[in-house]
């Protein structure tokens, strides 16, 4: 049953762009009916005086997810897990710019917000600003394009080339079923924040960030411990001023801290990960352990399950985070064996899985990803399943509403 929303020109406040239904590089289930209507009013950008009324069979609106994190903090791994939950691998657009940051799969399109830099590398050097600074980003364009994609209009999105540091010619982005915007500032601008259906912030503590960056960069010639440290220290003021405050707006925060199970641990291999879930978010019900709303501390290792050192420790409880009511699920330690993972999964509730063992299956599918043996992988997978649940709820409610309208 095709739902066909007809948008009048009043509802399309932003510029109308003509989307060509041909030349799809991924399978599209949309049938586009394009009506051209010339109007005397010329829009500000491009001067196009015709509007497109798109009729899409199936979903009428794109679900927009925002993911914020500093660079080197696991955004790419999260993206791969998320797209895998929906099925299929996300690939860069075929036949386009090889340095494109966009990833496209059947259901999802991932846009890197670095593409909305207003200053390229040389520009930032001249002005002495970092990429973290809002002055280096064009939030107006970001808002307009995300709004357009959410309404089902394709956009020409600029490309920021990370290799050359220049802004490349734009690429066409078709509105997907699920749009993920990942980068440094998805929740910085209030207008963009209002467009997000769900937002996630990856909060990595300083010690863990340092350890991860060492792992990443020590293979590079030229890098030393001092240069890595200097780089983190230099970026910290801008990070604390512009990026960190976004965590108060996130619906889910994945906080990664050093472990408490090993005294004086400085290796940073074992991690303590907290999943902070905001209460009262539409279509999102937090994961809980045993009894929702109570405070639980749980060590699964014992008679039924044997774990190796340092073991696993869980805790769950309500809390407040920046003035909001939240539920916090915390995992400290590592999984060594498959049966530990399935044992833990069987005791968690509200996971939004479609079958028993789905979390374990997803974790095993990507056992080579970083974090697959600790809370980062587990919570990323769980958030991915929650997003799938959120998407299904939103599309179900959207198809239900117009049917009711036609009945009335």
């Amino acid at each position, binding site marked *: 049953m095709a739902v066909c929303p007809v948008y009048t020109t009043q509802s399309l406040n932003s510029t109308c762009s003509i989307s060509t239904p041909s030349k799809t590089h991924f399978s599209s289930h949309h049938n586009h009916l394009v009506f051209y209507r010339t109007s005397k009013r010329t829009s500000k950008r491009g001067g196009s005086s015709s509007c497109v009324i798109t009729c899409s069979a199936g979903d009428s609106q794109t679900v927009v997810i925002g993911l914020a994190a500093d*660079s*080197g903090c696991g955004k*790419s791994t999260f993206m791969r897990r998320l797209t895998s939950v929906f099925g299929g691998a996300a690939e860069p657009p075929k036949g386009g710019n090889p340095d494109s940051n966009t990833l496209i799969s059947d259901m999802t399109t991932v846009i890197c917000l670095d593409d909305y830099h207003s200053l390229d*590398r040389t520009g*930032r*050097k001249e*002005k*002495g*600003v*970092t*990429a*973290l600074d809002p002055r280096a980003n064009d939030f107006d364009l970001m808002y307009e394009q995300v709004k357009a994609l959410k309404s089902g209009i394709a956009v020409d999105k600029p490309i920021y080339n*990370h*290799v050359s*540091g220049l802004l490349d010619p734009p690429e066409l982005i078709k509105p997907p079923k699920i749009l993920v915007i990942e980068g440094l500032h998805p929740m910085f601008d209030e207008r963009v924040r209002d467009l997000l259906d769900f937002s996630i912030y990856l909060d990595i503590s300083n010690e863990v960030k340092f350890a991860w*960056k060492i792992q*990443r*960069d020590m*293979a*590079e*010639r*030229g*890098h030393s411990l001092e*240069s890595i440290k*200097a*780089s983190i220290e*230099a*970026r910290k*003021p*801008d990070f604390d001023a512009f990026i960190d405050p976004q965590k108060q707006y996130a619906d889910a925060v994945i906080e990664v801290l050093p472990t408490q199970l090993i005294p004086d641990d400085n290796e940073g291999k074992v991690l303590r990960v907290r999943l902070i879930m905001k209460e009262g978010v539409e279509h999102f019900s937090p994961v809980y352990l045993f009894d929702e709303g109570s405070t639980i501390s749980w060590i699964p290792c014992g008679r039924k399950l044997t774990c190796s050192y340092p073991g696993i420790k869980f805790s769950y409880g309500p809390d407040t985070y920046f003035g909001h009511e939240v539920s916090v699920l915390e995992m400290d330690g590592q999984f060594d064996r498959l049966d530990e993972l399935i044992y833990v999964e069987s005791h968690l509730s509200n996971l939004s899985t479609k079958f028993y063992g789905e979390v374990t299956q997803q974790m095993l599918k990507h056992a080579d990803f970083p974090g697959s043996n600790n809370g980062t992988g587990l919570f990323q997978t769980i958030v991915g399943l929650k997003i799938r649940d959120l998407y299904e709820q939103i599309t179900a409610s959207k198809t239900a509403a117009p049917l009711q309208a036609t009945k009335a």
Partner: protein
Amino acid sequence: MATLFTLNLVTPRAIASLPDSTKGSPIKVPYLNQPWKRILSPLESRRMQVRAAPDRLSEKVEQSIKEAQEACSDDPASGECVAAWDEVEELSAAASHARDRLKDNDPLENYCQDNPETDECKTYDN
């Protein structure tokens, strides 16, 4: 079938036009008897181009670190110093992504993604 023929006709020209192809002068058409060669030659050159990207990036990372250290020797709190270290971070991230992408390049997987119906790539799941 007609499309297969056109594909075969296009590829030798594609091989000939690749600038850093290792195949020198003879523009033979070996792929008719040895179809795997048809796959490998564009991939080889692509692999050479892909291999060049992390190397280029590594050099850029090294250079940017030197520049950042110079910029910060004058004034550690200045905008130039901070912007220089941010550039180091950006390039390091790009280099690490390039290295990861290189690790994932399996020629058979790449071929089968585009041509799942060929004999090498058919899967029998039921």
